[in-house]
């Protein structure tokens, strides 16, 4: 297999720490991939409501480039890009008229079907290697006992017919990755509820209303952090969290799934870009380090007695 990497616009800008974290983790897991040369925007949430053709053509250009550059698989860590790439490929397969006019629109011939990955299914395939790397560390396991709410949102799981990823109502792949990293996924109710997506800027009040329910439910089920796999979800739950949190309430860090894996296998917060998050991750990191330290001391005491 030859894996192409489609970063998308967010990972090069306002969510650059997701790219830092994704690249650091894939490097550590020895996942080989090449960034698609001259990739362009997938149109995200603004092309498809204006024109179905544009909503398919913008992602299809990138699939065509990936295939021309020799790839048969693509990973798009941004869930919105992932969804648009998968939707374009699905619609081109299902609608012969659309497929017939697309080469004329693109100026490229239609690519063969590629295997399109999101970051969660990619990491889940490497779960054994993550476990190995966690076990091989000399330091005590950093994430042991950390309670995490796995938040999928919309774009990874819906429409399931298009993404073919996990179960639309009760997915479990992210939990597999969280467990491989040594942390504990919590059972909660908001895993596939919408965070308000692209309304972060144009209709912030909706995002605050929806995000507040997600953060509150995670907290009520004992989570100490929320794991996400989408820059839009992350912006809404991280940058916008201040507006959702009542006075005196501790904010709940929203971490990319790659952040958790990275910390578990020994990458530094700096390599993962954690300081770029709006919700301060320092208190959580400090308490995890203190707990790991205490476990190590207790184990040493037991050994010597």
């Amino acid at each position, binding site marked *: 297999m030859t894996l192409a990497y489609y970063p998308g616009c967010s990972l090069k800008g306002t969510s650059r720490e997701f790219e830092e974290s994704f690249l650091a983790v894939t490097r550590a897991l020895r996942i080989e991939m090449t960034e698609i040369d001259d990739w362009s925007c997938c149109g995200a949430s603004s092309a498809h409501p204006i024109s179905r053709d544009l909503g398919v053509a913008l992602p299809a250009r990138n699939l065509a480039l990936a295939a021309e550059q020799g790839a048969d698989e693509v990973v798009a860590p941004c869930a919105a890009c992932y969804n648009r790439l998968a939707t374009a490929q699905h619609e081109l397969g299902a609608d012969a008229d659309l497929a017939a006019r697309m080469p004329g629109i693109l100026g490229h011939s239609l690519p063969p079907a590629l295997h399109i990955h999101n970051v969660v299914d990619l990491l889940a395939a490497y779960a054994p290697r993550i476990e190995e790397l966690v076990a091989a560390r000399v330091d005590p396991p950093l994430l042991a006992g950390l309670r995490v709410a796995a938040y999928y949102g919309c774009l990874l799981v819906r429409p399931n017919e298009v993404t073919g990823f996990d179960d639309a109502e009760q997915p479990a792949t992210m939990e597999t990755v969280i467990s491989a990293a040594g942390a504990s996924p919590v059972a909660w109710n908001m895993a596939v509820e919408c965070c308000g997506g692209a309304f972060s800027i144009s209709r912030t009040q909706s995002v*605050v209303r929806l995000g*507040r329910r997600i953060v509150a439910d995670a907290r009520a089920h004992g989570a100490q952090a929320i794991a996400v796999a989408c820059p839009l979800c992350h912006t809404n739950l991280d940058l916008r969290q201040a507006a959702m949190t009542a006075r005196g309430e501790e904010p709940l860090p929203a971490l990319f799934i790659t952040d958790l894996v990275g910390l578990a296998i020994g990458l530094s917060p700096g390599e993962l870009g954690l300081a770029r998050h709006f919700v301060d991750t320092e208190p959580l990191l400090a308490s995890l380090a203190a707990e790991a330290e205490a476990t190590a001391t207790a184990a040493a005491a037991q050994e010597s007695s």
Partner: protein
Amino acid sequence: MTNQSGAMSRSDAVVRLLAETRSAAARCYQCGKCSAGCPMVSEMTLPPHDIMRLTAHGRFAEVLSADSLWLCLTCETCSERCPTGTDPAAIIDALREAAVLDGRREVPRSIAAFHRSFLDQVRLTGRLYEAGFFAEYKLRSRALLDDIGNAPGLVRRGKLHPLPHRLHGIGEVRAIFERCGVRASDLSGAGHAPAADDAGGAPGGGDPGGGAEGGHA
């Protein structure tokens, strides 16, 4: 809707889109499950099952002017759960496309400004140039004084690039926009008064005003 030769006029495209959505919406038996799970239903005047009903009955004047169309997040919850295989998310997308082709103006201003600014930046540079997007969005939404995306916080964290990336295939991207019949002027006159825009914020939201700032740090 378009083809690259531009053979179909915009009004023909609207007629065709509406005929297609009408027959697609005819599968709906009005159980209301789509609206029950819709994250935006509390802010919509026409909930998704009503949009399906009016569309199936061909009452397009009511549907195309509904700002509810533009409040849909394409979260796909409705389409995933619909027991009849009606695809409300796709039908709403097609209705929005028809509304734009038809030159409708009833799009909430901030949402029209968002889509327009987003697509302008992509057409201009091939990727979403975020600094340009923030500037253009401010002008178009007339939210000149709001700190829309907490820009200072973004700059402090090194997240806002001052200059756009240069794409070699920019000509290809611009040609794609043109062949899809998407014009720079689409949505340009759209956007109704902010008062109506804001009306949706309050239900169940508690303190929606706090959302406009968003940043702490």
